[in-house]
């Protein structure tokens, strides 16, 4: 490509096209088509200029300027000109890279990142750690592909445009409701926090199951069983507040939860310790604090490397530890 046009050059060209008398001559028509095709930024700049030009048509209501009251002192010419200078950068670039439409755009979170994504239809997605979705909004359907991980959706009501989440072959459909989907290898976990959703497995010869607020199920090839467990659903979604609900989980399970959210990995080095059950809520981003609390509670020993926190039983004598000899956790 030739050196990129500055935004100011685009603005000047757009203003010239905007003020031309319509309809355009066939030659101008062709030239405009070529100009627009040359750079995606031009179309937006032209729309803005044409919109301003069209809105200024109301100036007709002003009548001839000989009849206008003295207005020169209100805004001096100097002010108009200098503010133009300030605004030289205003028609700034939408670089080609920024031009990807929202349609089919993949949104992904990194380790430990939880993102709230407002969608163009008014729905909201809360995307958990290490997850990715692709949103495709069409007139007939709102389609979200859960590429990996877990997402909670608060769906804006619109019976004309069903909201469908696809996680592999698992499908979850809502009209106006709130629910989460976590993609697993063989299907997807579905938790409903508000309203009603319909869920099914693509290709399975079975009717869809209906889930209501507080229900959870697993959609896979086998028949789906629906459990009503509002508390479990609530705890499972504590991540939306940046928390892990321990709720009687084993230390081993909670450690693997932490490992979803943090680069620093927790390794439990003792099976009996790993089987201890924990309660309460902890911040997902604080594996250090969590490990320290565990050490306190179970009189365990915590050893750290740059990437890993090892939790094990206390040694009687502190000779050589194994921490340095074992490999780096995941």
């Amino acid at each position, binding site marked *: 490509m030739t050196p990129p046009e500055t*935004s100011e050059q685009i603005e*000047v060209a757009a*203003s010239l096209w*905007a*003020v*031309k*008398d319509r309809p355009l001559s066939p030659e101008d*028509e062709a030239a*405009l088509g070529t100009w627009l095709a040359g750079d*995606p*930024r031009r*179309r*937006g700049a032209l*729309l*803005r*200029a*044409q*919109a*301003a*030009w*069209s*809105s*200024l048509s*109301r*100036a*007709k209501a002003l*009548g*001839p*300027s000989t009849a*206008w009251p003295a*207005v020169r002192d209100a*805004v*001096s010419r100097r*002010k*108009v*000109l200098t*503010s*133009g200078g*300030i*605004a030289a*950068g*205003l*028609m*700034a670039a*939408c*670089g080609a*890279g*920024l*031009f*990807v*439409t929202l349609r089919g*755009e993949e*949104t*992904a979170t990194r380790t430990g*990142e939880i993102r*709230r994504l*407002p969608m*163009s239809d008014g729905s909201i997605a*809360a995307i958990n750690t290490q997850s990715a979705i692709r949103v495709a909004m069409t007139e007939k359907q709102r389609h979200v592909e859960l590429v990996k991980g877990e997402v909670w959706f608060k769906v804006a009501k619109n019976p004309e445009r069903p909201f469908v989440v696809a996680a592999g072959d698992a499908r979850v459909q809502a009209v106006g409701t709130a629910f989460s989907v976590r993609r697993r290898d063989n299907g997807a976990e579905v938790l409903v926090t508000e309203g009603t959703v319909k869920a099914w497995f693509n290709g399975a010869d079975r009717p869809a199951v209906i889930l209501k607020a507080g229900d959870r199920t697993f959609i896979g090839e086998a028949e789906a069983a629906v459990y009503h467990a509002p508390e479990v659903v609530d705890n499972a979604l504590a991540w939306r*507040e940046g928390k892990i609900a321990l709720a009687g989980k084993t230390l081993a399970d909670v450690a693997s939860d932490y490992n979803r959210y943090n680069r620093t990995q927790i390794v439990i080095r003792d099976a009996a310790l790993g089987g201890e059950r924990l309660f309460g809520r902890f911040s997902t981003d604080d594996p250090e604090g969590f490990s320290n609390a565990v050490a306190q509670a179970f009189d365990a020993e915590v050893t750290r490397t740059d990437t890993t926190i090892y939790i094990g039983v206390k040694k009687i004598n502190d000779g050589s530890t194994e921490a340095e000899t074992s490999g780096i956790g995941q």
Partner: protein
Amino acid sequence: MESAPDHIIRWVGANILPHEADLRAWLRRARLGREDVEDIIQEAYCKIAELSTVEHILSPRAYFFTVAKNIAFMRIRRARIVRIDSVDEIDRLDVMSDAPSPERETAARHELKRVMRLIAALPSRCRQVFEMRKVQGMPQKEIARVLGLSETTVENEAAKGLRLIMRSMASEDQGQGSQKELKRDAARNQ
């Protein structure tokens, strides 16, 4: 080929453009840099140019703000370093609470006066052409004949007038009373 169909251009002129200065102020409050803000606004117009119909848009202001908000999120996500703090800030900008204030509604009635001031402040030949074109509604050819100028010159003057007016509208500060719009959404996710 045009930027957009006629009815959309008119719709943007009447329903989107008047909110541009507010949108700019709103985005600035999310601690986004000036350049980022201008890029986002520009891209929002590009996005609107792709619409084939606007009938489904009940609140053009909210739509404009939402499109900009989505673009802002997209840009942050594409940045090599994800600024969680800005994500959080933008997240807290509540589109629905950003309704125009009553003062702003009244101000809309003074729009014509403002246009009059802006035209009056244009350089003289530019102003003359602009007036004949937009106030008297004369075709370009006719203006060229009356003023004894080439059509190209008339076109250039009109375009210059348009740019000057757009720029001063864009930089006019309308962000007063803006703090109330920055709603801390304490109750989210409850």
